[in-house]
């Protein structure tokens, strides 16, 4: 059952990403390009996505997931260096190629070799992340 739900959720996610135009890197870079031909589409995508999600969070209160277990607890609100530095690094890569992890997977089937190169580098980056975090700890302890 969990697998069926994961497939349906993934299909909605992938379908939404391509219909919204987020697999087109020019639209993502256009959103970030405030000094050029600014493209507001991403704001509508983000805003649209937050509506069902906010309803789902509201509905989840006092309930349990369909397949059992419990809903994810609110994270520790502590902000910290990792959140900020990591987000800055992610944002730089996002701007550089116009891709974040979701749309990269969604366009992997039709985007050609460039997508595979990006994904391969992203996976290496994910594997290296703990080492980078440790290296940062030696310079400036997290908190």
């Amino acid at each position, binding site marked *: 059952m969990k697998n069926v*739900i994961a*497939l349906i*959720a993934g299909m909605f996610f992938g379908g*939404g990403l391509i219909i*919204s135009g987020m697999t087109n890197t020019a639209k993502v870079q256009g959103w970030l390009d405030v000094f050029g031909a600014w493209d507001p589409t991403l704001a509508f995508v983000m805003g649209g996505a937050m509506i069902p999600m906010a309803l789902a969070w509201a509905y989840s209160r006092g309930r349990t997931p369909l397949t059992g277990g419990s809903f994810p607890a609110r*994270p520790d609100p502590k902000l910290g260096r990792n959140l900020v530095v*990591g987000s800055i690094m992610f944002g730089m890569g996002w*701007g550089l*190629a116009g891709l974040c992890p979701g749309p990269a997977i969604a366009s992997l089937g*039709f985007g050609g070799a460039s997508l595979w190169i990006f994904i391969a580098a992203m996976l290496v980056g994910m594997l290296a992340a703990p080492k980078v975090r440790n290296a940062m700890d030696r310079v400036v302890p997290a908190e």
Partner: protein
Amino acid sequence: MQIDWIYGLIGGLLIGTGGAIYLLGNGRIMGASGIIGGLVDGSGRSTAMERIIFLAGVFITPLIVLQFMDRSETNITNNIVQLVIAGLLVGVGTRIANGCTSGHGVCGMSRLSIRGFVATVFYILAGGLTMAILRHVLGWI
């Protein structure tokens, strides 16, 4: 391009519906970098099948949509150096920050998580600054 925002909104609603199904069904946050990252570093071994099937859905559905809609344009660069640097930054950054556009952005901000808002502000600022410097100062992209 007048109707792009309508497609954006419809696509966004679909993305959010996917997140809502994943949350209410499996009790999990639909964050792309977390779902992929857990497979890469082994931290998500106990839920590996669920993650792989989710990603298969993300991969396959666009190929179906392409049969009905002209959406094959990616405008992705062919510059290998640019792709590798971008990929490394996205991979390292999302794992250190513990989330990306879907996890921190869509799922985090919709539950009014401070961390989600802070992450989103920083990655949009960093992306905007990167675009401003590379496109308008250096003229590279």
